[in-house]
């Protein structure tokens, strides 16, 4: 047997036919993998400095976003507190009410939940789906602490129905039956605007609730308007900057970049001072006699859009400038010399070539607008709040993390769809630069 590779020979010196047969393929793998492992080692060495940040991002960016998705589909309160009841209810056909024995199972589990402290989460969860649901659950648990014949299922039933007539109807039972697992699409259904709340008799509740579809529409609409206006304002600005030389360009760029450097909060605050009822603008207008009484300028859609435009303008303009600077001026001159008017030469030669910049800036602005929270929260009215506002409210005030997570999942998904072409654009252009 000849061995072309010296060091591999060590593997083959075993005078064992069986061992040789087994080792032969391994030998080639060893060589190949030593070449491969060398390039691996180089790649690992290249990646090594980035490891701390990557681990940090994995821990505090990727995992938290994963836990949002997990929270959005987690829905185990009912099954956790009432495991036997949900199991027993699988045999129920959904008409009228379940058999009397189930009342006893439920009653016992409610009592146990009361002791274990899981009754409040259960009540809250049922309340999301059943009008007055929290009262139905907590009231039942309270009534069960009174004295009655605990051996008789009929007495449990009577006691529960006495606590709340809802227990004599199908609504609450159908909810308990439905959630027999740890996961459900309930919050996602809620966040996508499906009606989720029912009455005790099982009909859809007429109670007023959040209209998430109109909130998404509003978010998209405001973002579109802001994007459109920043492009309309930004295009001439970018054009002038891209075609200015030296000092002029530097000064104009400074004005564009200034908002980049000043605090977002301070800029938003300055709009409040400027626009409020007794603010600078209203007072100036009133003193000049232009208006008889202060105009409601703050807490309006208009204020939101104007403040957002100011914040987003640099993001729209900067990509436009870098694309416009690369457009050769000779082509426009050539078009002019061939008889095209100045506007026509611009529209047919310059504008089409600046579209990549407009698209990049516009997309970036649109994606960033979708997630706006601070500006609408401070200068907008209640009907100008976008998705982020509701995520913050459900997290911090209503403590409904499931719904907040479901809204977040939809927001990231939507923004991601829009951002994909943007990412491709950035990747293409950043690879030229790096």
């Amino acid at each position, binding site marked *: 047997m000849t061995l072309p590779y010296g060091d591999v020979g060590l593997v083959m010196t075993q005078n064992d036919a069986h061992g040789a047969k087994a080792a032969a393929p391994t030998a080639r793998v060893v060589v190949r993998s030593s070449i491969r492992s060398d390039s691996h080692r180089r790649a690992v060495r290249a990646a090594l400095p980035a490891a701390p940040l990557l681990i940090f991002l994995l821990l505090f960016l990727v995992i938290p976003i994963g836990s949002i998705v997990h929270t959005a589909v987690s829905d185990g309160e009912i099954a956790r507190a009432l495991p036997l009841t949900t199991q027993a209810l699988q045999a129920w056909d959904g008409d009228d009410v379940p058999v009397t024995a189930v009342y006893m199972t439920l009653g016992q589990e409610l009592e146990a939940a009361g002791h274990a402290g899981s009754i409040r989460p259960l009540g809250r969860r049922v309340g999301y789906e059943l009008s007055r649901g929290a009262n139905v659950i907590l009231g039942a648990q309270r009534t069960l602490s009174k004295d009655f014949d605990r051996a008789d299922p009929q007495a449990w039933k009577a006691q529960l129905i006495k606590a709340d007539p809802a227990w004599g109807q199908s609504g609450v039972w159908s909810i308990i039956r439905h959630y027999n697992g740890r996961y459900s699409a309930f919050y996602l259904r809620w966040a996508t605007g499906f009606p989720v709340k029912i009455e005790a008799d099982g009909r859809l509740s007429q109670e007023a609730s959040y209209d998430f579809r109109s909130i998404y529409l509003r978010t998209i609409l405001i973002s579109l308007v802001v994007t459109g206006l920043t492009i309309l304002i930004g295009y001439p600005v970018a054009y002038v900057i891209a075609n200015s030389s030296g000092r002029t360009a530097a000064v104009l760029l400074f004005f564009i970049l200034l908002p980049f450097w000043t605090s977002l909060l301070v800029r938003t605050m300055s709009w409040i*001072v400027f626009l409020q009822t*007794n603010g600078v603008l209203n007072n100036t207008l009133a003193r000049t006699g232009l208006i008889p009484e202060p105009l409601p300028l703050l807490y309006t859609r208009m204020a939101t859009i104007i403040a957002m435009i100011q914040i987003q303008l640099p993001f729209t303009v900067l990509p436009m400038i870098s694309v416009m*600077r690369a457009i050769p001026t000779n082509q426009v001159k050539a078009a002019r010399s061939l008889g095209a008017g100045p506007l026509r030469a611009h529209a047919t030669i310059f504008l089409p070539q600046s579209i990549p910049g407009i698209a990049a800036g516009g997309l970036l602005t649109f994606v960033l607008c979708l997630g706006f929270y601070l500006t609408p929260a401070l200068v907008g009215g209640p009907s100008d709040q976008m998705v982020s506002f509701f995520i913050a409210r459900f997290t911090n005030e209503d403590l409904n*993390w499931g719904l907040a997570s479901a809204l977040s999942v939809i927001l*990231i998904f939507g923004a991601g769809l829009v951002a994909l072409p943007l990412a491709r654009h950035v990747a293409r252009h950043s690879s030229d630069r790096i």
Partner: protein
Amino acid sequence: MGRRVYTEFPTYIRIPLYGFVGIALLLLMLPLAVALPISLNADPWFTYPFRASSLRWFTELFSSPLWTGAMVNSLVIASSTTVVATTLGTLAAIGLVNPRFPFRTAVMALAISPMIVPVVVLGLGLFIFFSPLGLNYSYAGVVIAHTILASPFVVITVTATLTRFDFNLMRAAAGLGAGRVTAFRTVMLPIIAPGVAAGAVFAFASSFDEVVMVLFIAGPQQRTLPKQMFTGLREQLDPTILAAATVMIILTSCLMAVAYNANKKR
């Protein structure tokens, strides 16, 4: 690039174009230019003209324990964030400019993504993730949250600086017997220092200005300056907020000027 002249447009288009751009830029600056001087108004009104001007609101800002506490918190949190984000971001940028870096584009996209992902979503994710770890309502939690937001600034600035760095210098250092760490410390770092400084300034400014993460993660102990301003803006607008805003703007402007000059000198 040479001087570019407006050969395309005749005067009758150029003048309205200039006018439009000038007015647009001025209008965007107007509220800020109008609002900040009101911090000098002696009366608690948000209008011009003043009856008298005074530093009353600044005195109030620096004497009220609520505001000074918030300022100290902001400085502590922003400084810690700057240290962590600058270290992690600079190292990552060094890795990311290496063409051998595996999945470089994807990793770059991940490193930049905190700039695009809505802050509220990041805040909610960290809030959920932190709650079993006990990091909510802690300084460490806020610094981690701010580092996530600040690190892209460092990665971008340092990466841009490194594209102009001559990596042969590192080979020369290695040839002269320097280890990787020594070569980094004595050759690369001094050359890219202005870029690192600019990244650090951006990191500081982004943390010093941040309020949304604070709303999610911080407790009353970690009340920062922007949080204090945000509360004031939502409840009762008080000229002290304008004084605080003026202080914030002056501080970040100074830092930006320092970073700008450091980069210009190169």
